[in-house]
C-alpha cells in the first residue's frame, strides 16, 4: 500500500508521459467515434472531381480546376474537423464526469489541456496527410491521362512543331502533381491547428459541445473576413475612433485566418518564398501558445 511519505514525491510541472497518455486516449476516442468517416466522403468527392466534364477547357486549366476544388475541399474538411472533433472533447468529458476521474489522478490541468490539443492536432495531421495523398494520386492519374491525350492530339497536327509540343506539355506539367503542393497542405494544417486551439479555448468556458461548435464557426468566419469588415466599417464611419478601437480589439482577439490563404497561390502554381512558410509557422506557434495560455488561465480556476 502507498504510504503517506510517498505522496511527498515531486510531480513535474509538465509530464510528457501523462500528456502523451491523454493525447493517445483522445486519438483512440475520436477514431472509435468514427470521426474519420468524413475521409470517405472526401475520397468520393475527389474521385468525382476527376470525372467532371471539362470539354471546353485546356488540359492545364482542367488540372488547375481539379487542384483548386480538391485542395479547397481538403482545407474545408480540415478546419471543420478541427472544430467538431475538438468541441466533442472537454464538454463531453465534463458531461460524462470522465473529467472528474482524470483530474482526481495526479494529473495537472495543463497536462490535460495540452494532451487533448496534441491528440486532435495529430489526428488533423494524419487526416490531412491521407487527404493530400488521395489528391496527389488522383492528380497524377489525371495528369498522366491528359499528357497522353494531349501528345496524341498535338502530334497528329502537322502545323505544330516539336518545340511547341514541348511548351504545351511543360504548361500541363506545371499544373501536375508537384512537391510544392505539400506547402498548401501544410498551410491547411497550420490554419486548422489555430482553429483547434481556439475551439479548446471556447470549450473551457462553454456549456456544451453544440455551443462550442457554433461559437467556433462564428469566430472562424469573422477571422476570415477581418480585412473586408474593417475596411467597410472604417469607410462607412469615416474612421470613427470607437470603430477603429473595436476593429483593433477584434484583430487582437480573433486570428486573421486570411493570412493562411497563401496556399491558394501554391495550388495555382505560384512559387512560394520559404520565408513566408517559416513566418506562418512562427505565427501559428504564437497563436497556439497564446490560446493555450488563456485556456489554461480559465481552466486552472474552473470549478467542476
Amino acid at each position, binding site marked *: 500500500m*502507498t*504510504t503517506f511519505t510517498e505522496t511527498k514525491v515531486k510531480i513535474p510541472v509538465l509530464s510528457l508521459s501523462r500528456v502523451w497518455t491523454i493525447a493517445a486516449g483522445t486519438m483512440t476516442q475520436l477514431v472509435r467515434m468514427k470521426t474519420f468517416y468524413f475521409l470517405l466522403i472526401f475520397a468520393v468527392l475527389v474521385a468525382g472531381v476527376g470525372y467532371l466534364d471539362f470539354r471546353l477547357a485546356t488540359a492545364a486549366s482542367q488540372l488547375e480546376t481539379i487542384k483548386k476544388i480538391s485542395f479547397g475541399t481538403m482545407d474545408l474538411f480540415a478546419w471543420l474537423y478541427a472544430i467538431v472533433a475538438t468541441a466533442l472533447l472537454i464538454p463531453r468529458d465534463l458531461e460524462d464526469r470522465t473529467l472528474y476521474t482524470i483530474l482526481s489522478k495526479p494529473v495537472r490541468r495543463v497536462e490535460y489541456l495540452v494532451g487533448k490539443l496534441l491528440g486532435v492536432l495529430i489526428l488533423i495531421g494524419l487526416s490531412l496527410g491521407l487527404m493530400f495523398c488521395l489528391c496527389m494520386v488522383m492528380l497524377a492519374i489525371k495528369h498522366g491521362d491528359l499528357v497522353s491525350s494531349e501528345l496524341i492530339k498535338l502530334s497528329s497536327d502537322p502545323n505544330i512543331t516539336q518545340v511547341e509540343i514541348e511548351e504545351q506539355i511543360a504548361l500541363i506539367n506545371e499544373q501536375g502533381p508537384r512537391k510544392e503542393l505539400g506547402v498548401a497542405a501544410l498551410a491547411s494544417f497550420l490554419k486548422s491547428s489555430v482553429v483547434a486551439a481556439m475551439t479548446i479555448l471556447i470549450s473551457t468556458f462553454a456549456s456544451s459541445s453544440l455551443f462550442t461548435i457554433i461559437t467556433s464557426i462564428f469566430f472562424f468566419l469573422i477571422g476570415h473576413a477581418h480585412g473586408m469588415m474593417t475596411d467597410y466599417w472604417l469607410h462607412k464611419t469615416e474612421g470613427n475612433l470607437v470603430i477603429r478601437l473595436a476593429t483593433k480589439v477584434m484583430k487582437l482577439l480573433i486570428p486573421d485566418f486570411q493570412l493562411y490563404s497563401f496556399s491558394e497561390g501554391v495550388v495555382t502554381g505560384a512559387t512560394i518564398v520559404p520565408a513566408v512558410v517559416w513566418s506562418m509557422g512562427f505565427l501559428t506557434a504564437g497563436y497556439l501558445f497564446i490560446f493555450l495560455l488563456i485556456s489554461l488561465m480559465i481552466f486552472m480556476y474552473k470549478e467542476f
Partner: protein
Amino acid sequence: MSKPAVEVKNLTKVFNTGNPGANVFKKGITGSYVVAVDNLSFKVEAGEVYGLIGPNGSGKSTTMKVVLGLMAPTDGSAKVFGLDAGDVRARNDIGYLPENPYFYRHLSGEETLKFYGKLCGLKGKVLKDRIDELLDMVDLEGARTRRLAGYSKGMLQRIGLAQAIIQRPGLVILDEPTAGVDPVGSRQIRDLILQLKEEGISVFLCSHLLEQVQEVCDNVGIIFKGRMRREGPLEELVSIENRYSFVLENASPKLIKEIETLVEKEKGVTITEKGNPRTTLERLFLKIAGSKDQDEV
C-alpha cells in the same frame, strides 16, 4: 501516529447564482448566492470507512469535490494525508469513483485501466500485472476486452472502482457507489469496500442509502443543508441506550412464557417488541438470486 486520510476544518463553500430558487439562503450585493457547505469539520482516520450521509442537495458531493481538489473552498481547509487538497501530490494517494460514471465508452475494460494506470505513472509489467489483479478482483476478467458501451451499470461501477484503486491509493472516495445498481451488484460493491478496509485503505463514501452505510462504515457524519448535524462511531449513533435485545433459537413456548412472567415482575421494565425476527427483502432477494446462480452452475 499516521496523519488522517482526510481532515476537513471549518469548510465553507458558497456558490454565486443569478437564478434565485428554493435553495437560495442569502442574498448578496452582486446577486443571490447559495451556501452549499457551512463550516463543516470532520476527520477520516487512516484505515477507517467513513460515511457522509444526507439527502440530495445537502452538500455531500460539494464536500467531496473540495477534498478532490476539483473545487476550492470559500473558507476553511481540506487536507488529504496532511497535504492541501488542491495540491496535485495529494492525488497520488486518492482513488475516486463518481456517481454514475461513464468513462470512455469506446475503450474496453482493460484499456480503461491501462489509461488510468498510465496517468498514475504505472507502466510495463507492473501495470499489466495490476490490471490482471484488479480485473480478477472486480470479477470482470471475462469482459476485459469488451468495450464499456456494452457494460451493465453494475459492471461500470466495478470497473470504476478498479480504476479508482489502480495506483494502490491510501484513500478511496466513493460518491453514491451503488446508485442504480441491482441488489446483487450492490452487494458485490459492498464486499469490495470491506475488502479495501481489510487491506488498510481508508474509504470516504457519500450516500443516501442508509442501510448500505450502516453495513460498511465505522464512522458516520450526517449532513443537512450544508451543516454537520451528528457525527461519531456508527455503533454509538444507532444504539438505543435504555433498550436491550436478544434473539432465541429453538425456544419452547413454555420458556418464552416464563421469560415474559419474569419481565412482568420487574418494575418499569416492559417488552416493546416480540415475535419471529424477519429477514429484509434484500436479504431474501440475495438468497434467492444466490441459489438460482447455483442451480444454473
